[in-house]
């Protein structure tokens, strides 16, 4: 039996809609038009204890809805879900003691007072034992470098500082599962790095199962070995990131700076784009390798400069989205 097992969940929202303008506003005052939005059509997967899973998909694909169902906030229309032997929305109060949730776009900290006060409140809400609480708190303060920032009113913190406090707040009760819904949204490179390292350590040392949604593919690259791609409310890909890269990551990007005109036609050249001071090529390295390609170019023109880029994960995702038409 898997630690997390999701079977055929479906969730539909009823959304009131109307066109802009006074006339339609009045019309909708008397008779509302509703539209059914299928947030999730049919999603199934299972996750083992101790995994880190990246849950990705374009905006509106149903990522957050899934997270909210898994954390017991929303009740799906259909489907089964067993996590740690419990159904989240049925045994909500008991179940949520074992999970931590971070919504990157929301805040659980009290705005006007230092986050340490919120931590104390959470201690009483979760009924954490005093000694254990002190231990966990000290650990989190050390790991996330919070010493100086938990004594400052939350409204005076930067986004990166606040997000570190948010994560600490979600971990005070030592959860077994951590749901992260876009935890790095709006953060700078350094803050992102701190968070990623921390999540990695948490997973390794405490065997916390992590499910994370993000639009930042470097998060996924740094953290998740397994990704679940969701689009239009369905699971489109479920597997390792490596395999995805092998399948789609053989494209190389070369920009060649030259003053001369160049015309190339060879197997493996996917596209060629004229820029101000040269050309940009996309080649398939399975069909033509980079040195052969450069040889070919240098025979024809004088190369002033060359830049070679690997296919980055963002492009892979864009191609995937295109392929699945989502």
């Amino acid at each position, binding site marked *: 039996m898997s630690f997390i097992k999701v079977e055929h969940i479906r969730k539909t929202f009823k959304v009131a809609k109307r066109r802009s303008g006074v006339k339609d506003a009045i019309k909708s005052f008397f008779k509302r038009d509703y539209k059914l939005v299928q947030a999730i059509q049919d999603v199934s997967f299972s996750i083992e204890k101790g995994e880190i899973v990246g849950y990705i998909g374009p905006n509106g694909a149903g990522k957050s809805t899934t997270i*909210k169902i898994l954390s017991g906030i929303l*009740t799906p229309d259909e489907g089964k879900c067993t996590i740690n032997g419990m159904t989240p929305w049925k045994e909500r109060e008991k179940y*949520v003691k074992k999970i931590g*949730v971070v919504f990157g776009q929301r805040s659980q900290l*009290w705005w006007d007072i230092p986050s340490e006060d919120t931590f104390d409140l959470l201690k009483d*809400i979760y009924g954490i034992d005093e000694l254990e609480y002190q231990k966990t708190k000290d650990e989190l303060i050390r790991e996330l470098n919070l010493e100086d920032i938990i004594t400052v009113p939350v409204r005076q913190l930067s986004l990166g500082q606040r997000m570190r406090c948010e994560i600490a707040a979600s971990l005070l009760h030592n959860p077994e599962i951590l749901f992260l819904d876009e935890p790095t949204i709006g953060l700078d490179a350094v803050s992102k790095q701190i968070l990623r390292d921390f999540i990695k350590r948490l997973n390794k040392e405490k065997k916390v199962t992590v499910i994370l949604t993000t639009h930042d593919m470097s998060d996924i690259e740094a953290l998740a070995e397994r990704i679940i791609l969701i689009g239009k409310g369905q699971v489109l890909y479920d597997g390792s990131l490596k395999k995805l890269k092998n399948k789609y990551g053989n494209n190389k990007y070369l920009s060649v700076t030259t003053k001369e005109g160049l015309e190339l036609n060879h197997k493996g050249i996917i596209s060629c784009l004229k820029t101000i001071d040269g050309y940009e090529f996309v080649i398939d390295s399975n069909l033509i390798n980079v040195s052969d390609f450069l040889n070919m170019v240098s025979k024809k023109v004088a190369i002033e400069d060359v830049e070679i880029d690997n296919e980055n994960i963002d492009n892979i995702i864009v191609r995937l989205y295109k392929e699945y038409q989502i």
Partner: protein
Amino acid sequence: MKFYFSYFKLRFITGLQYRAAAYAGLATQLFFGLIFIMVYLAFYESSSGKNPMEVSELVSYLWLNQAFFSLFYMLYKDGEIFDLIKNGNIAYELVRPKKLYFIWFAKIIGQRLSAVTLRCFPVLIISFFLPKPYNMVLPIGLANFILFILTLITGTLLMTSIVTLYHVITMKTLNEKGIPQVFAAIADLLSGLVVPIPFFPHFLQVISNYLPFRYVNDLPFRIYTGNIGLQEGLFGLGIQLLWIVLIVGIGYIMTNKSLKRVVVQGG
């Protein structure tokens, strides 16, 4: 139970953060107390008929109204709760291992107790030392005082259950204006915070007896002044408890029903 106290503590800390608001609140209550008493005294002097309350009873009642105003007025809206319904932060309330109804109950009672703690003692102390006839007087007996404290506590619980109820209703309507606001304005009138209940015309007094609002503050205050006797006071305490059970029950069931259909706004 401990987390009720934690919410109180946190709201209290937050309240202390805004010192100017606390001073301003105190000044407002003293100002209104004096104005009300002056107006009533003027009426008393010019009236020839029988007055429904003794002057000393009335003055104490008015001062108690002012001292506990921030605890008992019904138009109270918990901005934080309304915000989290509107912008979807309610998601965080739902990942806590407590029933949502009781989290809100705790938040509201914590907020109101912390607000009143900063105001009631200075108002009460100052009002005792004012010159006659503007001063507040001691309760007429120890038994009255004990019953006053008891009904004040149950009155606080009753107020919280009513206020929590219309916050729960907001989960459905998504807007705190409209019906809840009209409801709260009527509640404020019928609770005796605007005009003491004994001054109401007879039919309104009868109506107010059949509604819960009068039992929030009018009952304990009139027990304190001796306008209501011990026997009637004890009967009132029973009615308070019945209303609390009923309103908490309705709110609790409504919350659980709404949660099945909850939609988190804003993605």
